[in-house]
């Protein structure tokens, strides 16, 4: 059970906000040590897995394109479009983004948008501009809240609707695990049973976004 101290290192390290890269390496060393591995063995195992997982960090290939568009004013343009629309609020804007993101993820297009390529250059500035339309220039704290909510909405929309698509990795994992346990199931049935959760996510997060609008209105009046 001492190998679980690695998990404890993660929890404490993240809680006291040490640099996470160091915390992760220390956690690996701790669990490895109690599993009977030498530090060099752990370092080699970590290095091997790091090399195998390079695809995770290759997604930043979008940075040059996003950066150049920002240089040419894409965020300002996105905000300007919102500023000229009537009746728009941060919450309502994010609800429509959520609907679009859920619908496209459900047909297998979860990767067409994301935090780097969509939320930073387009969705966050548009949500901030929407706040400004109704309530005037927001205080910095309000700006941060709106941005965080934009990022959260993207995650929530994708997480609870990507499983509606049959060929999603998580659906296939469920199917293959059940198969190894001698339960054979068509992936479509896994997908179908994820639809109620997808609808509930839209209702719950949508309601939160409407409440978020009211909170924003109050915070600017106060």
């Amino acid at each position, binding site marked *: 059970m001492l190998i679980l101290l690695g998990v404890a290192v993660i929890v404490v390290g993240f809680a006291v906000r040490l640099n*996470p890269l160091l915390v992760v390496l220390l956690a690996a060393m701790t669990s490895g040590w109690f599993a009977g591995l030498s530090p060099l063995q752990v370092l080699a195992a970590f290095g091997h897995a790091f090399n195998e997982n390079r695809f995770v960090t290759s997604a930043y290939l979008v940075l040059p394109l996003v950066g150049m568009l920002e240089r040419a004013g894409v965020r300002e343009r996105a905000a300007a479009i919102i500023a000229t629309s009537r009746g728009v609020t941060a919450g309502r804007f994010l609800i429509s983004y959520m609907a679009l993101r859920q619908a496209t993820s459900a047909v297998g297009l979860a990767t067409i948008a994301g935090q780097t390529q969509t939320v930073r250059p387009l969705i966050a500035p548009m949500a901030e501009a929407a706040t400004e339309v109704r309530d005037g220039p927001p205080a910095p704290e309000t700006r941060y809240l709106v941005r965080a909510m934009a990022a959260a909405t993207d995650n929530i929309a994708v997480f609870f609707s990507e499983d509606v698509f049959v060929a999603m990795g998580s659906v296939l994992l469920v199917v293959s695990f059940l198969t190894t346990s001698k339960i054979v199931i068509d992936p479509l049935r896994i997908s179908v049973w994820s639809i109620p959760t997808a609808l509930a996510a839209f209702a719950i997060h949508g309601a939160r976004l409407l409440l978020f609008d009211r909170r924003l209105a109050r915070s600017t009046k106060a």
Partner: protein
Amino acid sequence: MIKLGFVYVLAGLMYAAFALLSATDRVNRKRWGNALFWGLVAVSFLAGDRLGDLGNGVLVLGLALIAGFGFLGRGQPATTSPAERTGLAEQFGNRLFLPALMLPLVVAIGVLLLKPVQIGGVPLMDPKQATLISLALAVIVGLALALALLRQPWASPLQEGRRLADTIGWAALLPQFLAALGAVFALAGVGKAIGLLTSTYLPVDTRLAAVSVYCVGMAAFTMLMGNAFAAFPVLTGGIALPILVGHFGGNPAVIGSIGMLSGFCGTLMTPLAANFNLVPSALLELPDRYAVIKAQIPTALLMLIVNVVLMYVLAFRP
């Protein structure tokens, strides 16, 4: 056949350019730290397969030490001022969105249309990596279009990319670090130990208690491991199959599906799911590292309750 190696070479060259441009950035007092950090990432992408396991381990140690001891600064490449950007936004109008639209468009074309294409029996692209390969192609198409339409300096994609990479900083590497930690944890048997504790000491004697333990366990275990995929086999094998399916006769399709979605509630609440939760905080320049998680927690907790109710209602219909 286009393989993942193509994406890695492209990424390696990009990070190498970030390193070189960082080294020449005299405004950044920590420019050598940045140059070394992005340089190591470039080496990993260009030569990682030739370094050996321990070599890669030493590279990782280097990255962690540079980040952990504060040698990473933030480059400030010359860019347009806010006023200039507003002017450019008016001048270009909606044309600005065309290159951005290439990303979803080309990725969708790649995943839906090009993935099944075969030339002489050989697939055009490695089907398992179709998304990343399509994304790389989409970036090339988008950049070409942006350079033609927006007439920005030729070096600007790399300089602006470096500006964003420095904004994200060490958080950019955290998801890959955590993936590697997952592998070491698996080697040490951490998942099995937690699964054993959960299935041994928690009450599962009524149907509602068992459903709650499984769903909440999926969320909690996912928070500790940083991803629902690691939690699913352990808890489904430990609780769902023997008790919910075996003892109470539940429908395995409903249980598996909603069990996974309960895990996703945990993903929304843990800093270990760094690419979803911590990278956006850095990208959006939020002073609180955990601001995105805090925005997600209320929805995640409500969705966990919803999942328990849905599983309880849907899985045991006659």
